[in-house]
């Protein structure tokens, strides 16, 4: 046996696993999405009917819009909260506070997102902490926040603020302080220092975080399912309904591939933007 063959053999278990549990199911899903479900069997002719169906029925288009809208709102709110947080952490916090801040940002990653969602459900329910607190200060009746789109957004934002803070923080701490000194020395006030130095140099972290937030929001099923109350369905919920209620695997596959195409497109655009911003 030649010496060069061994490394290839070592790759075998991992590749086999990857092919068996990722490539094959994916291929099956793609293949299936071009056939129509007829009773308990697939139709005999390949067709685009599932896709045409998706892009013509308001039910699906509404779900697509709900998903995109959710992604944008969650990303927008998370960014608005995360950027100032990361900024303060990297420029105005001592090393100790930075460590504590990063620890706090990491905490949500260590809990199961199912558990996290149910915790928010409890907190936002009629007798939950949030409603009670809002009631007691007479702020606004927060009764009934659970099982609404707002609850989904709160659940998402909680998690993604932490994620975005981490990616933005990692960009901000890498900006040499001498750049800021140099800009001030050349006559720049704080607004100019921020818009011309800090913001452009933090863009790679911002774009990476925004991309992750958007794509993960789009692909998440658990949070809207547990917190959203099933009134305004997003794509992932529609996919699940196709599988669980209709048993229509080809349609579920087609919707899934549309979702995947959007995620891949967003990722590619973000990657290009990052390499452009970090040049």
């Amino acid at each position, binding site marked *: 046996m030649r010496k060069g063959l061994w490394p290839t053999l070592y790759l075998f278990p991992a590749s086999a696993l990857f092919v068996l549990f990722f490539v094959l199911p994916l291929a099956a899903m793609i293949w299936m999405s071009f056939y129509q479900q007829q009773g308990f069997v697939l139709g005999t002719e390949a067709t685009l009917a599932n896709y045409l169906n998706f892009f013509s029925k308001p039910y699906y288009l509404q779900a697509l819009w709900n998903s995109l809208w959710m992604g944008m709102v969650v990303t927008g709110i998370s960014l608005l909260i995360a950027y100032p947080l990361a900024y303060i952490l990297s420029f105005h916090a001592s090393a100790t506070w930075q460590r504590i801040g990063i620890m706090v940002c990491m905490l949500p990653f260590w809990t199961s997102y199912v558990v996290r969602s149910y915790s928010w459900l409890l907190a936002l329910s009629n007798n939950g902490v949030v409603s009670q607190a809002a009631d007691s200060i007479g702020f606004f009746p927060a009764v009934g926040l659970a099982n609404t789109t707002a609850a989904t957004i709160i659940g998402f934002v909680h998690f993604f603020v932490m994620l975005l803070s981490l990616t933005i923080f990692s960009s901000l701490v890498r900006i*040499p302080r*001498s*750049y800021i*000194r*140099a*800009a*001030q*020395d*050349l*006559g*720049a*006030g704080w607004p*100019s220092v921020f818009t*011309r*130095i800090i913001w*452009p*140099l933090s863009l790679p972290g911002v774009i990476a975080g925004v991309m992750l937030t958007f794509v993960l929001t789009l692909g998440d099923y658990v949070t809207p399912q547990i917190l959203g109350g099933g009134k305004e369905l997003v794509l992932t919920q529609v996919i699940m309904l196709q599988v669980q209620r209709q048993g229509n695997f080809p349609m579920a596959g087609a919707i899934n591939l549309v979702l995947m195409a959007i995620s891949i497109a967003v990722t590619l655009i973000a990657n290009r933007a990052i390499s452009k*911003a970090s*040049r």
Partner: protein
Amino acid sequence: MSRGLHLQGIEKRLGQQDVLRGIDLTAASGSYVVLLGPSGSGKTTLLNIVAGFEEADQGLVMIDDEDVGGLPPRLRPTATVFQDYALFPHMSVADNVGFGLRMHGLGKAERDRQVAEVLALVDLASFADRRIDQLSGGQRQRVAVARSLVVRPKVLLLDEPLGALDLSLRRQMQRELRILQKKSGTTFLHVTHDQEEAMSLADLLVVMNGGRIEDAGPPDRIFDSPASLFAATFVGENNVLRGRITSRAKTGTVIETALGPVKVQSEAPEGDEVYVTVRPNRLRLATPGSRAKHFLRGTVEEVTFLGTYYGLRVRTEVAPDMAFHVHSDDRTPPEPGAEIAVTAEPSAFSIIAAKAS
């Protein structure tokens, strides 16, 4: 003579440590001032106080007779060339250089004109559209200087600007800095720990140690007759002897040292306890058999070839705990182990008062 830069009674403490103690310094407008000292001597802190990045606890910072203390860096008539250059990586060379002009509200046409002018001055006219990571170390250094010069500061501050360059490039950049300074007529305040760089650049050399100014003056004066023991040993190689003045006369002073009496021409300071210093290049090997009065007799310990001369380390029995340095431009220097005698003119020596040091 207008005072380009005037510092008076600058004090700075950080926690328990005195970083700067009683700094007084006046430099003529348009002069090249070099702060020379080891790390921890307070020279960078002093630069930051002039720039406005740090505030002095006490004292006066005046530029062209105007008190700038308390002003933030952006309102001071200074510009800084940072040790790491701090060039903005997301901007072109031209945008970097034009940054200060833009911050001062100049229009694009005028900005472009001045940027082109200053880039030509530093020999980088064709590099305007380059990105920073496409430049070599020397080019970056010139962009940093151009970016600071273009805003026409009254004082240009340079924080170890050549520290990142290799030796030959460093010597070249020294010449270029010197030429730029003369051309622009700007007061330069340059911080370095390289004494050769300091001597070759400075009109006014300021030797700092432990937060104090040890000596300030033209480099040749500091080299030939330093004001303190630290200045004598930090700026160039030197031989130092402790001694006591035994007689003072118009024609010269006689000092009793470990090597016996030494006759010295320079003026004697107050007090009897002094240091006598003599540069290795002012010591001569006595011709064998010469009956002339010797400064020292001893054994050659080590001979080092240094290009234009040989450096000899000599030890004498009279003061065995001291090594003396002698330069010899003789192409056949004595071998290690040889017994030699060394002479010196009375004018070769300089005297430093042995104060509290």
